[in-house]
Protein backbone atom coordinates (compact mmCIF):
# COMPACT_ATOMS: atom_id res chain seq x y z
CA UNK A 1 0.00 0.00 0.00
CA UNK A 2 1.37 3.43 -1.00
CA UNK A 3 0.48 5.97 1.69
CA UNK A 4 -0.08 9.67 1.07
CA UNK A 5 -1.25 12.68 3.07
CA UNK A 6 -4.56 13.60 1.42
CA UNK A 7 -4.76 17.35 0.84
CA UNK A 8 -8.45 18.17 0.44
CA UNK A 9 -8.59 21.83 -0.52
CA UNK A 10 -11.95 23.63 -0.24
CA UNK A 11 -14.43 22.81 -2.98
CA UNK A 12 -14.11 19.02 -2.85
CA UNK A 13 -14.86 18.62 0.89
CA UNK A 14 -17.19 21.62 1.21
CA UNK A 15 -19.23 21.52 -2.03
CA UNK A 16 -18.75 18.12 -3.71
CA UNK A 17 -18.05 15.68 -0.85
CA UNK A 18 -18.55 12.82 -3.34
CA UNK A 19 -15.14 13.74 -4.78
CA UNK A 20 -13.54 13.24 -1.37
CA UNK A 21 -15.42 10.03 -0.53
CA UNK A 22 -14.73 8.47 -3.93
CA UNK A 23 -11.04 9.43 -3.85
CA UNK A 24 -10.58 7.64 -0.52
CA UNK A 25 -12.52 4.54 -1.57
CA UNK A 26 -11.36 4.15 -5.17
CA UNK A 27 -7.68 4.66 -4.43
CA UNK A 28 -7.73 1.99 -1.75
CA UNK A 29 -8.82 -0.56 -4.36
CA UNK A 30 -5.70 0.12 -6.40
CA UNK A 31 -3.20 0.10 -3.56
CA UNK A 32 -3.18 3.76 -2.52
CA UNK A 33 -4.03 4.77 1.04
CA UNK A 34 -5.03 8.41 1.62
CA UNK A 35 -4.43 9.62 5.17
CA UNK A 36 -6.06 12.75 6.61
CA UNK A 37 -3.82 15.84 6.62
CA UNK A 38 -4.96 17.34 9.89
CA UNK A 39 -5.19 21.12 10.13
CA UNK A 40 -4.71 21.78 6.43
CA UNK A 41 -6.31 24.93 5.05
CA UNK A 42 -7.17 26.39 1.67
CA UNK A 43 -4.15 25.80 -0.59
CA UNK A 44 -4.51 29.02 -0.75
CA UNK A 45 -6.42 29.78 -3.96
CA UNK A 46 -3.69 30.60 -6.51
CA UNK A 47 -5.85 33.08 -8.41
CA UNK A 48 -7.07 35.05 -5.42
CA UNK A 49 -3.98 34.92 -3.18
CA UNK A 50 -1.32 34.85 -5.88
CA UNK A 51 -2.86 37.93 -7.45
CA UNK A 52 -2.81 39.91 -4.21
CA UNK A 53 0.54 39.01 -2.68
CA UNK A 54 2.70 36.15 -3.92
CA UNK A 55 4.70 36.17 -0.67
CA UNK A 56 1.62 35.29 1.38
CA UNK A 57 0.76 32.62 -1.18
CA UNK A 58 4.20 31.03 -0.74
CA UNK A 59 4.02 31.12 3.06
CA UNK A 60 0.45 29.81 3.35
CA UNK A 61 1.09 26.94 0.93
CA UNK A 62 4.34 26.18 2.76
CA UNK A 63 2.40 25.80 6.02
CA UNK A 64 0.29 23.07 4.40
CA UNK A 65 3.43 21.43 3.04
CA UNK A 66 5.08 21.43 6.47
CA UNK A 67 2.07 19.58 7.95
CA UNK A 68 2.77 16.75 5.49
CA UNK A 69 6.53 16.96 6.08
CA UNK A 70 5.80 16.38 9.76
CA UNK A 71 3.83 13.25 8.78
CA UNK A 72 6.76 12.18 6.58
CA UNK A 73 4.33 11.53 3.72
CA UNK A 74 4.09 12.81 0.16
CA UNK A 75 0.92 14.77 -0.57
CA UNK A 76 -1.77 13.47 -2.92
CA UNK A 77 -4.57 15.80 -4.01
CA UNK A 78 -7.52 15.88 -6.41
CA UNK A 79 -7.72 19.52 -7.54
CA UNK A 80 -5.73 21.35 -10.23
CA UNK A 81 -5.92 24.62 -8.30
CA UNK A 82 -4.48 22.96 -5.20
CA UNK A 83 -1.84 21.39 -7.43
CA UNK A 84 -0.81 24.81 -8.65
CA UNK A 85 -0.35 26.08 -5.08
CA UNK A 86 0.98 23.03 -3.30
CA UNK A 87 3.09 21.45 -6.05
CA UNK A 88 4.42 24.72 -7.40
CA UNK A 89 5.30 26.33 -4.07
CA UNK A 90 7.03 23.10 -3.02
CA UNK A 91 9.00 23.19 -6.28
CA UNK A 92 9.86 26.90 -6.01
CA UNK A 93 10.95 26.71 -2.38
CA UNK A 94 13.09 23.64 -3.03
CA UNK A 95 14.99 25.49 -5.75
CA UNK A 96 15.03 29.14 -4.64
CA UNK A 97 17.08 29.74 -1.48
CA UNK A 98 16.11 33.40 -1.16
CA UNK A 99 12.36 32.74 -1.22
CA UNK A 100 12.77 29.73 1.04
CA UNK A 101 14.64 31.81 3.64
CA UNK A 102 11.93 34.49 3.48
CA UNK A 103 9.21 31.89 3.98
CA UNK A 104 11.02 30.19 6.83
CA UNK A 105 11.45 33.52 8.58
CA UNK A 106 7.64 33.85 8.65
CA UNK A 107 7.02 30.19 9.48
CA UNK A 108 9.41 30.51 12.46
CA UNK A 109 6.77 32.74 14.06
CA UNK A 110 4.51 29.68 14.27
CA UNK A 111 7.32 27.21 15.08
CA UNK A 112 7.41 25.67 11.64
CA UNK A 113 10.13 25.19 9.07
CA UNK A 114 9.92 24.24 5.42
CA UNK A 115 12.52 21.55 4.81
CA UNK A 116 11.65 20.36 1.31
CA UNK A 117 11.49 16.68 2.22
CA UNK A 118 8.33 15.59 0.41
CA UNK A 119 6.81 15.54 -3.08
CA UNK A 120 3.32 16.47 -4.25
CA UNK A 121 1.16 14.45 -6.65
CA UNK A 122 -2.24 14.70 -8.26
CA UNK A 123 -4.09 11.44 -7.60
CA UNK A 124 -4.70 11.10 -11.35
CA UNK A 125 -0.98 11.08 -12.09
CA UNK A 126 -0.53 8.37 -9.46
CA UNK A 127 -3.31 6.38 -11.16
CA UNK A 128 -1.52 6.75 -14.48
CA UNK A 129 1.94 5.97 -13.09
CA UNK A 130 2.84 2.29 -13.63
CA UNK A 131 5.20 2.36 -10.64
CA UNK A 132 2.30 3.24 -8.30
CA UNK A 133 -0.86 2.03 -10.03
CA UNK A 134 -1.08 2.24 -13.84
CA UNK A 135 -3.95 2.09 -16.33
CA UNK A 136 -4.11 -1.72 -16.28
CA UNK A 137 -4.65 -1.78 -12.52
CA UNK A 138 -7.46 0.76 -12.87
CA UNK A 139 -8.98 -1.43 -15.58
CA UNK A 140 -8.73 -4.51 -13.34
CA UNK A 141 -10.52 -2.68 -10.50
CA UNK A 142 -13.61 -2.00 -12.64
CA UNK A 143 -16.69 -4.09 -11.79
CA UNK A 144 -19.31 -2.02 -13.62
CA UNK A 145 -17.83 -0.92 -16.97
CA UNK A 146 -19.27 2.41 -18.11
CA UNK A 147 -19.78 1.03 -21.59
CA UNK A 148 -21.80 2.96 -24.12
CA UNK A 149 -21.07 6.34 -22.58
CA UNK A 150 -19.24 9.06 -24.50
CA UNK A 151 -17.18 11.09 -22.06
CA UNK A 152 -15.40 14.38 -22.76
CA UNK A 153 -12.10 14.89 -20.93
CA UNK A 154 -11.40 18.33 -19.48
CA UNK A 155 -7.76 18.45 -18.39
CA UNK A 156 -7.95 21.91 -16.84
CA UNK A 157 -5.00 24.31 -16.76
CA UNK A 158 -2.96 24.19 -13.61
CA UNK A 159 -2.06 20.51 -13.55
CA UNK A 160 -0.01 20.45 -16.75
CA UNK A 161 0.73 24.11 -17.49
CA UNK A 162 3.16 25.84 -17.64
CA UNK A 163 4.68 22.78 -19.29
CA UNK A 164 8.31 23.74 -18.87
CA UNK A 165 7.92 23.74 -15.10
CA UNK A 166 5.86 20.54 -15.03
CA UNK A 167 6.58 16.97 -16.11
CA UNK A 168 3.50 15.99 -18.16
CA UNK A 169 4.93 16.71 -21.62
CA UNK A 170 2.66 17.91 -24.43
CA UNK A 171 -0.06 20.36 -23.40
CA UNK A 172 -1.55 20.91 -26.88
CA UNK A 173 -3.12 17.49 -27.35
CA UNK A 174 -2.32 15.13 -24.48
CA UNK A 175 -4.05 11.72 -24.39
CA UNK A 176 -3.22 10.22 -20.98
CA UNK A 177 -6.49 11.30 -19.35
CA UNK A 178 -8.39 9.65 -22.22
CA UNK A 179 -6.52 6.42 -21.44
CA UNK A 180 -7.71 6.61 -17.83
CA UNK A 181 -11.29 7.19 -19.03
CA UNK A 182 -11.05 4.33 -21.52
CA UNK A 183 -9.93 2.03 -18.69
CA UNK A 184 -13.41 2.46 -17.14
CA UNK A 185 -15.08 1.11 -20.28
CA UNK A 186 -16.36 4.52 -21.37
CA UNK A 187 -15.56 6.03 -24.76
CA UNK A 188 -13.35 9.13 -24.43
CA UNK A 189 -14.29 11.58 -27.19
CA UNK A 190 -12.28 14.31 -28.87
CA UNK A 191 -13.69 17.80 -29.23
CA UNK A 192 -12.57 21.15 -30.59
CA UNK A 193 -10.15 23.16 -28.45
CA UNK A 194 -10.15 20.58 -25.67
CA UNK A 195 -7.29 22.23 -23.77
CA UNK A 196 -9.19 25.50 -23.35
CA UNK A 197 -9.67 26.86 -19.84
CA UNK A 198 -13.04 26.41 -18.05
CA UNK A 199 -13.14 30.17 -17.48
CA UNK A 200 -13.26 30.21 -13.69
CA UNK A 201 -9.59 30.67 -12.76
CA UNK A 202 -7.52 33.70 -11.84
CA UNK A 203 -10.36 35.15 -9.78
CA UNK A 204 -12.37 35.81 -12.96
CA UNK A 205 -15.42 33.84 -11.78
CA UNK A 206 -15.75 36.23 -8.85
CA UNK A 207 -14.68 39.36 -10.77
CA UNK A 208 -16.77 39.04 -13.94
CA UNK A 209 -19.08 36.02 -13.93
CA UNK A 210 -20.52 36.74 -17.39
CA UNK A 211 -17.03 36.78 -18.88
CA UNK A 212 -16.14 33.52 -17.12
CA UNK A 213 -19.40 31.86 -18.24
CA UNK A 214 -18.85 32.97 -21.83
CA UNK A 215 -15.61 30.97 -21.87
CA UNK A 216 -17.41 27.99 -20.29
CA UNK A 217 -20.18 28.31 -22.86
CA UNK A 218 -17.68 28.01 -25.73
CA UNK A 219 -16.37 24.78 -24.24
CA UNK A 220 -19.88 23.43 -23.72
CA UNK A 221 -20.78 24.15 -27.36
CA UNK A 222 -17.73 22.17 -28.50
CA UNK A 223 -18.40 19.32 -26.06
CA UNK A 224 -22.06 19.07 -27.06
CA UNK A 225 -21.12 19.09 -30.74
CA UNK A 226 -19.00 16.00 -30.16
CA UNK A 227 -22.00 14.21 -28.62
CA UNK A 228 -20.77 13.84 -25.03
CA UNK A 229 -22.95 12.09 -22.45
CA UNK A 230 -20.84 13.54 -19.65
CA UNK A 231 -17.83 15.72 -18.89
CA UNK A 232 -15.12 14.50 -16.58
CA UNK A 233 -12.35 16.58 -15.06
CA UNK A 234 -9.59 16.52 -12.47
CA UNK A 235 -10.51 19.71 -10.62
CA UNK A 236 -13.52 20.44 -8.38
CA UNK A 237 -13.33 24.14 -9.31
CA UNK A 238 -13.64 23.29 -13.03
CA UNK A 239 -16.43 20.92 -11.95
CA UNK A 240 -18.25 23.74 -10.18
CA UNK A 241 -17.81 26.03 -13.19
CA UNK A 242 -19.21 23.45 -15.64
CA UNK A 243 -21.91 22.11 -13.29
CA UNK A 244 -23.35 25.21 -11.62
CA UNK A 245 -22.17 27.19 -14.64
CA UNK A 246 -24.71 25.42 -16.85
CA UNK A 247 -27.51 26.70 -14.60
CA UNK A 248 -26.03 30.22 -14.68
CA UNK A 249 -25.56 30.04 -18.47
CA UNK A 250 -29.21 29.06 -18.83
CA UNK A 251 -30.24 32.08 -16.74
CA UNK A 252 -27.91 34.60 -18.36
CA UNK A 253 -27.64 33.43 -21.98
CA UNK A 254 -30.64 31.09 -22.37
CA UNK A 255 -28.46 28.21 -23.61
CA UNK A 256 -29.33 24.75 -22.27
CA UNK A 257 -26.96 21.75 -22.31
CA UNK A 258 -27.78 19.50 -19.33
CA UNK A 259 -24.48 17.63 -19.64
CA UNK A 260 -23.62 15.90 -16.32
CA UNK A 261 -20.20 16.82 -14.90
CA UNK A 262 -18.32 14.25 -12.84
CA UNK A 263 -14.88 14.30 -11.28
CA UNK A 264 -12.74 11.40 -12.52
CA UNK A 265 -12.85 9.90 -9.01
CA UNK A 266 -16.65 9.90 -9.07
CA UNK A 267 -16.57 8.20 -12.46
CA UNK A 268 -14.08 5.65 -11.17
CA UNK A 269 -16.30 5.14 -8.12
CA UNK A 270 -19.28 4.31 -10.34
CA UNK A 271 -17.14 1.89 -12.37
CA UNK A 272 -15.98 0.21 -9.16
CA UNK A 273 -19.57 -0.31 -8.10
CA UNK A 274 -20.22 2.66 -5.82
CA UNK A 275 -23.84 3.81 -5.94
CA UNK A 276 -24.88 7.36 -6.95
CA UNK A 277 -25.89 7.81 -3.27
CA UNK A 278 -22.34 6.89 -2.16
CA UNK A 279 -21.12 9.75 -4.34
CA UNK A 280 -23.72 12.37 -3.34
CA UNK A 281 -24.47 12.94 -7.01
CA UNK A 282 -27.70 14.62 -5.93
CA UNK A 283 -25.58 17.62 -4.89
CA UNK A 284 -24.65 18.19 -8.53
CA UNK A 285 -26.57 21.05 -10.12
CA UNK A 286 -26.99 19.14 -13.39
CA UNK A 287 -29.00 15.94 -13.02
CA UNK A 288 -26.75 12.90 -13.62
CA UNK A 289 -29.69 10.49 -14.12
CA UNK A 290 -29.60 10.27 -17.95
CA UNK A 291 -25.91 9.41 -17.78
CA UNK A 292 -26.46 6.89 -14.97
CA UNK A 293 -29.28 5.20 -16.90
CA UNK A 294 -26.95 4.77 -19.81
CA UNK A 295 -24.10 3.17 -17.86
CA UNK A 296 -25.64 1.34 -14.89
Amino acid at each position, binding site marked *: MHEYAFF*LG*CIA*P*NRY*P*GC*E*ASAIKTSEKVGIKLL*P*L*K*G*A*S*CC*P*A*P*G*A*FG*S*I*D*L*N*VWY*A*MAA*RNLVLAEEMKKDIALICNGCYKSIWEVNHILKHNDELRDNVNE*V*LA*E*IDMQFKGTIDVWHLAELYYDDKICGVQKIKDSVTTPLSGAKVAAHYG*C*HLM*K*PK*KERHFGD*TENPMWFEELIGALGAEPIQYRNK*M*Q*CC*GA*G*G*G*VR*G*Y*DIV*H*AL*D*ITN*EKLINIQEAGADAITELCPFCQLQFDRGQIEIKEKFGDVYNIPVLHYNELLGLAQGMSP*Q*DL*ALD*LHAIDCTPFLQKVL
Partner: protein
Amino acid sequence: MAAKSYNIPELDKKLADRRYHLSDTNPEFTQKILKTSRTIANMCYQCGTCTGSCPSAPRSSYRIRLFMRRCVLGLENEALTDPDLWLCTTCYSCTDRCPRDIAPTDVIMAMRNLAFKRDIVPKNFLQTVQLIYTSGHGVPNNDVNRAARTKLGLPADPPTTHSYPEFIKGIQKIMDHYELKENADRILKGD
Protein backbone atom coordinates in the same frame (compact mmCIF):
# COMPACT_ATOMS: atom_id res chain seq x y z
CA MET B 1 22.90 57.72 -39.43
CA ALA B 2 21.24 61.11 -39.30
CA ALA B 3 17.47 61.21 -39.49
CA LYS B 4 15.98 62.33 -42.78
CA SER B 5 14.94 65.97 -42.67
CA TYR B 6 11.34 66.86 -43.35
CA ASN B 7 11.97 70.60 -42.93
CA ILE B 8 9.54 70.67 -40.01
CA PRO B 9 11.71 71.72 -37.03
CA GLU B 10 9.55 70.03 -34.38
CA LEU B 11 9.38 66.74 -36.25
CA ASP B 12 13.08 66.82 -37.14
CA LYS B 13 13.90 67.29 -33.47
CA LYS B 14 11.77 64.31 -32.50
CA LEU B 15 13.27 62.11 -35.22
CA ALA B 16 16.81 63.04 -34.20
CA ASP B 17 16.13 61.86 -30.67
CA ARG B 18 16.43 58.07 -30.75
CA ARG B 19 15.47 57.63 -27.11
CA TYR B 20 11.94 56.45 -26.48
CA HIS B 21 10.38 58.60 -23.88
CA LEU B 22 6.94 59.22 -22.57
CA SER B 23 6.20 61.47 -19.65
CA ASP B 24 4.56 58.73 -17.60
CA THR B 25 7.21 56.08 -18.12
CA ASN B 26 8.68 54.47 -15.01
CA PRO B 27 11.69 52.24 -15.71
CA GLU B 28 11.54 50.89 -12.15
CA PHE B 29 8.14 49.39 -12.95
CA THR B 30 9.77 47.04 -15.47
CA GLN B 31 12.45 46.04 -12.96
CA LYS B 32 9.88 45.36 -10.23
CA ILE B 33 7.92 43.11 -12.58
CA LEU B 34 11.02 41.18 -13.62
CA LYS B 35 11.84 40.54 -9.96
CA THR B 36 8.35 39.47 -8.84
CA SER B 37 7.42 37.47 -11.93
CA ARG B 38 10.85 35.81 -12.26
CA THR B 39 10.40 35.79 -16.03
CA ILE B 40 12.32 37.66 -18.77
CA ALA B 41 9.44 39.98 -19.67
CA ASN B 42 11.82 42.52 -21.22
CA MET B 43 12.60 40.02 -24.02
CA CYS B 44 9.08 40.31 -25.48
CA TYR B 45 9.16 41.10 -29.21
CA GLN B 46 5.39 41.61 -29.53
CA CYS B 47 4.63 38.70 -31.86
CA GLY B 48 1.10 38.36 -30.43
CA THR B 49 1.12 34.60 -29.93
CA CYS B 50 -0.02 35.29 -26.36
CA THR B 51 -3.14 37.23 -27.35
CA GLY B 52 -3.85 34.66 -30.07
CA SER B 53 -3.83 31.90 -27.42
CA CYS B 54 -5.86 33.79 -24.83
CA PRO B 55 -9.41 32.60 -24.00
CA SER B 56 -10.26 36.06 -22.62
CA ALA B 57 -9.19 38.00 -25.71
CA PRO B 58 -12.07 37.06 -28.09
CA ARG B 59 -14.71 38.24 -25.61
CA SER B 60 -13.23 41.42 -24.15
CA SER B 61 -10.78 44.25 -24.73
CA TYR B 62 -8.15 42.41 -22.64
CA ARG B 63 -4.95 42.06 -24.66
CA ILE B 64 -2.06 40.30 -22.94
CA ARG B 65 0.33 41.58 -25.64
CA LEU B 66 -0.59 45.15 -24.68
CA PHE B 67 0.25 44.45 -21.03
CA MET B 68 3.59 42.97 -22.10
CA ARG B 69 4.34 46.19 -24.01
CA ARG B 70 3.32 48.30 -21.03
CA CYS B 71 5.73 46.24 -18.93
CA VAL B 72 8.64 46.78 -21.32
CA LEU B 73 7.93 50.51 -21.63
CA GLY B 74 7.34 51.02 -17.92
CA LEU B 75 3.80 52.32 -18.38
CA GLU B 76 2.88 51.75 -14.77
CA ASN B 77 -0.28 53.82 -14.42
CA GLU B 78 -1.72 52.64 -17.70
CA ALA B 79 -1.17 48.99 -16.77
CA LEU B 80 -2.27 49.03 -13.13
CA THR B 81 -5.42 51.12 -13.57
CA ASP B 82 -6.75 49.13 -16.54
CA PRO B 83 -9.69 46.98 -15.33
CA ASP B 84 -8.78 44.39 -17.99
CA LEU B 85 -5.82 43.41 -15.79
CA TRP B 86 -8.24 41.24 -13.82
CA LEU B 87 -9.65 39.31 -16.81
CA CYS B 88 -6.73 36.85 -17.05
CA THR B 89 -7.91 33.36 -16.00
CA THR B 90 -4.25 32.37 -15.51
CA CYS B 91 -4.66 29.43 -17.90
CA TYR B 92 -0.99 29.65 -18.96
CA SER B 93 -1.76 29.01 -22.65
CA CYS B 94 0.26 32.11 -23.59
CA THR B 95 3.12 30.94 -21.38
CA ASP B 96 3.22 27.50 -23.01
CA ARG B 97 3.26 29.00 -26.50
CA CYS B 98 5.54 32.03 -26.05
CA PRO B 99 8.41 31.66 -28.57
CA ARG B 100 10.62 33.78 -26.29
CA ASP B 101 10.07 31.48 -23.30
CA ILE B 102 8.50 34.30 -21.32
CA ALA B 103 5.67 33.66 -18.85
CA PRO B 104 3.18 36.46 -19.64
CA THR B 105 0.79 34.95 -17.05
CA ASP B 106 3.35 35.61 -14.33
CA VAL B 107 3.77 39.18 -15.60
CA ILE B 108 0.03 39.67 -15.05
CA MET B 109 0.33 38.19 -11.54
CA ALA B 110 3.21 40.57 -10.76
CA MET B 111 1.20 43.54 -12.05
CA ARG B 112 -1.76 42.51 -9.89
CA ASN B 113 0.56 42.34 -6.86
CA LEU B 114 1.77 45.88 -7.63
CA ALA B 115 -1.81 47.09 -8.17
CA PHE B 116 -2.80 45.72 -4.75
CA LYS B 117 0.02 47.76 -3.16
CA ARG B 118 -1.84 50.80 -4.52
CA ASP B 119 -5.22 49.53 -3.20
CA ILE B 120 -6.36 48.64 -6.71
CA VAL B 121 -8.03 45.23 -6.40
CA PRO B 122 -11.50 43.79 -7.10
CA LYS B 123 -13.65 43.09 -4.04
CA ASN B 124 -13.97 39.34 -4.57
CA PHE B 125 -10.23 38.83 -4.03
CA LEU B 126 -10.43 40.57 -0.66
CA GLN B 127 -13.52 38.62 0.41
CA THR B 128 -11.57 35.38 -0.14
CA VAL B 129 -8.86 36.77 2.14
CA GLN B 130 -11.42 37.46 4.87
CA LEU B 131 -12.95 33.97 4.58
CA ILE B 132 -9.59 32.24 4.86
CA TYR B 133 -8.62 34.44 7.78
CA THR B 134 -11.66 33.38 9.80
CA SER B 135 -12.13 29.75 8.71
CA GLY B 136 -8.97 28.62 6.91
CA HIS B 137 -11.07 27.93 3.83
CA GLY B 138 -11.80 30.12 0.81
CA VAL B 139 -14.99 28.09 0.32
CA PRO B 140 -16.14 27.11 3.85
CA ASN B 141 -18.48 24.26 4.80
CA ASN B 142 -22.25 24.74 5.23
CA ASP B 143 -25.18 22.83 6.74
CA VAL B 144 -26.44 21.25 3.50
CA ASN B 145 -22.97 19.94 2.84
CA ARG B 146 -22.51 18.74 6.44
CA ALA B 147 -25.66 16.64 6.11
CA ALA B 148 -24.46 15.20 2.80
CA ARG B 149 -21.03 14.38 4.24
CA THR B 150 -22.59 12.55 7.16
CA LYS B 151 -24.71 10.46 4.76
CA LEU B 152 -21.54 9.49 2.90
CA GLY B 153 -19.93 8.26 6.11
CA LEU B 154 -17.53 11.21 6.20
CA PRO B 155 -17.15 13.41 9.29
CA ALA B 156 -19.54 16.39 9.08
CA ASP B 157 -16.52 18.68 8.91
CA PRO B 158 -13.41 17.66 6.96
CA PRO B 159 -10.17 17.01 8.91
CA THR B 160 -8.89 20.46 7.92
CA THR B 161 -9.00 23.68 9.96
CA HIS B 162 -12.75 22.99 10.12
CA SER B 163 -12.15 20.05 12.49
CA TYR B 164 -8.96 21.47 13.99
CA PRO B 165 -9.64 25.20 14.49
CA GLU B 166 -6.54 25.47 16.69
CA PHE B 167 -4.56 25.70 13.44
CA ILE B 168 -6.33 28.90 12.38
CA LYS B 169 -4.18 31.00 14.70
CA GLY B 170 -1.05 30.07 12.72
CA ILE B 171 -2.75 31.04 9.47
CA GLN B 172 -3.76 34.38 10.96
CA LYS B 173 -0.19 35.00 12.13
CA ILE B 174 1.14 34.42 8.61
CA MET B 175 -1.45 36.76 7.09
CA ASP B 176 -0.87 39.38 9.81
CA HIS B 177 2.87 39.27 9.09
CA TYR B 178 2.05 40.70 5.66
CA GLU B 179 -0.79 42.90 7.04
CA LEU B 180 -3.05 41.24 4.51
CA LYS B 181 -6.27 41.08 6.55
CA GLU B 182 -5.80 44.62 7.79
CA ASN B 183 -5.38 45.94 4.24
CA ALA B 184 -8.29 43.87 2.93
CA ASP B 185 -10.60 45.23 5.66
CA ARG B 186 -9.43 48.79 5.07
CA ILE B 187 -9.90 48.65 1.28
CA LEU B 188 -13.32 46.99 1.55
CA LYS B 189 -14.43 49.59 4.09
CA GLY B 190 -13.33 52.38 1.75
CA ASP B 191 -15.65 51.00 -0.94
